[in-house]
């Protein structure tokens, strides 16, 4: 397995944000990490990347502890997240070139040019980041995410600000990377249609616990308790939201 999370628990004072979360992601898998706001998705992602120290449990990326083997692990990982910004005065190309150097790319300039082309933003290369629209900024974030040709990608709401055409291009790129390179993706989104289309498996979190995991159709059948012919993750999501008041009562 490329990523193995075992009994991951995180307490913030008296509040348990993650409660013995265990899951794995294999090479070439696209796994959706889903759940309502406050379910623990971001805490999980940030723990994987070492931004939050777990209270207990273990994380293994490429068989290594990411906190102890930062260099080896993070050379093969990349991320897009609403928490990631770019220096606003630097141009798109300058921002990406800094990241290319951080990843030690030998052909950084060519790689950036090619990615700007794939994402249709070559004309923005000399534009300061502060002057980009949210959709353009998202595409720059995706360029950064693809820069080091990662083996493991963490995509936190990656398509939220994209128009349908751009979203289609990005999905195509992800699927190409998955098929050609075996890139694994951990994907968080509230857009259930996108998740059904992209993800091989999904993990539903609620209040820090995994409440269901499997293929989209397996989770649909398990949570809704019906023999559905096709995935219906939006219904699953809504049904889980509906349960919360009764569960807490």
């Amino acid at each position: 397995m490329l990523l193995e999370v075992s009994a991951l628990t995180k307490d913030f004072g008296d509040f348990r944000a993650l409660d013995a979360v265990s899951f794995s992601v294999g090479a070439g898998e696209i796994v959706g990490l889903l759940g309502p706001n406050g379910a623990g998705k971001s805490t999980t992602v940030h723990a994987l990347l070492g931004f939050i120290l777990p209270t207990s449990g273990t994380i293994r990326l490429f068989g290594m502890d990411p906190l102890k083997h930062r260099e080896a692990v993070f050379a093969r990982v990349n991320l897009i997240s609403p928490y990631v910004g770019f220096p606003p005065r630097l141009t798109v190309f300058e921002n990406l070139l800094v990241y290319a150097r951080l990843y030690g790319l030998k052909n950084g300039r060519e790689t950036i040019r090619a990615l700007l082309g794939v994402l249709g933003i070559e004309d923005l290369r000399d534009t300061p980041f502060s002057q980009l629209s949210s959709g353009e900024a998202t595409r720059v974030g995706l360029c950064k995410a693809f820069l080091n040709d990662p083996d493991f990608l963490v995509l936190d709401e990656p398509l939220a600000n994209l128009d349908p055409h751009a979203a289609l291009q990005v999905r195509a790129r992800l699927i190409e990377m998955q098929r050609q390179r075996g890139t694994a993706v951990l994907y968080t989104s509230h857009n259930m249609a996108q998740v059904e289309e992209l993800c091989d498996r999904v993990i539903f979190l609620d209040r820090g616990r995994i409440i269901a995991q499997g293929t989209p159709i397996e989770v649909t059948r398990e949570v809704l308790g019906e023999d559905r012919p096709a995935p219906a993750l939006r219904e699953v999501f809504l049904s889980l939201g509906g349960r919360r008041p009764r569960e807490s009562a």
Partner: protein
Amino acid sequence: MKAHRVGAIVLRQVYEARHNLDRFTDALYWPVIDVLLWGFMSVYLGHRDGAKPGFASFLLGTAILWGVFRNFQRDVAVGFLSEIWARNLIGLFSTPLSVSEYVSGLIIVNLLKAAAGMVVAGLVAWIFYSFDIFPLLPRLLPHLGVLMVFALAVGILVTGLIFRYSTRIQSLSWSITGLLMPFSCVFYPLDALPRSMRPIALALPTTHAFEGMRLVMSGGPIGLPDLVAGYGLDALYLALATVAFTRLFQATRSRGLLVKLE
């Protein structure tokens, strides 16, 4: 530590300087204003009856060197703050970049900025006040080193505090040297301080640096006892700052505050 990652941080700061007028202002504008101000003051005081020979040179020289110390400390902390303001920290530290590589990049850039500021301030002092600091530099440099290492220790501590307590306390970045200044004997000798404050002054590397610099500027040799005391205290404060930073950084990650810094 990898040179290409340190170089990436240098590149990021160079790009910032290219686009951001604030960086130019920090590096050159304030050092020049300082020298002009202290130059007029020293001319005025130097012409009063009873002024000691070389009094104006002392004031100008120490104004230049204090500016180097203050700017270097501030720029290390502000360089880090600029990543928070841009929400760039998560992006940077999701790469193989380590904290030590990041800090090394900041140190290199800000040493260059401090050197540029000192050269410009020195030229202004030479042109307007006929005070030439450059021939003194070889003998001043060891004392200047004491200042820079202490500035780095203060910068690291402030950075750790900002990690832990966020930008609420960001003003420490540009104000903490003001707190140190009265006790650092920048413009007056240690004897001028009230006896009760001298232990505080002696505990600061800056005091030993400026005492040594005054000796050099009055034509004396490099003050070895001041250098030993200065670098000894520097080593202590740098070690303490590093330990404090490590603990503050751990506490920040443990509390999940790293992703909330803004």
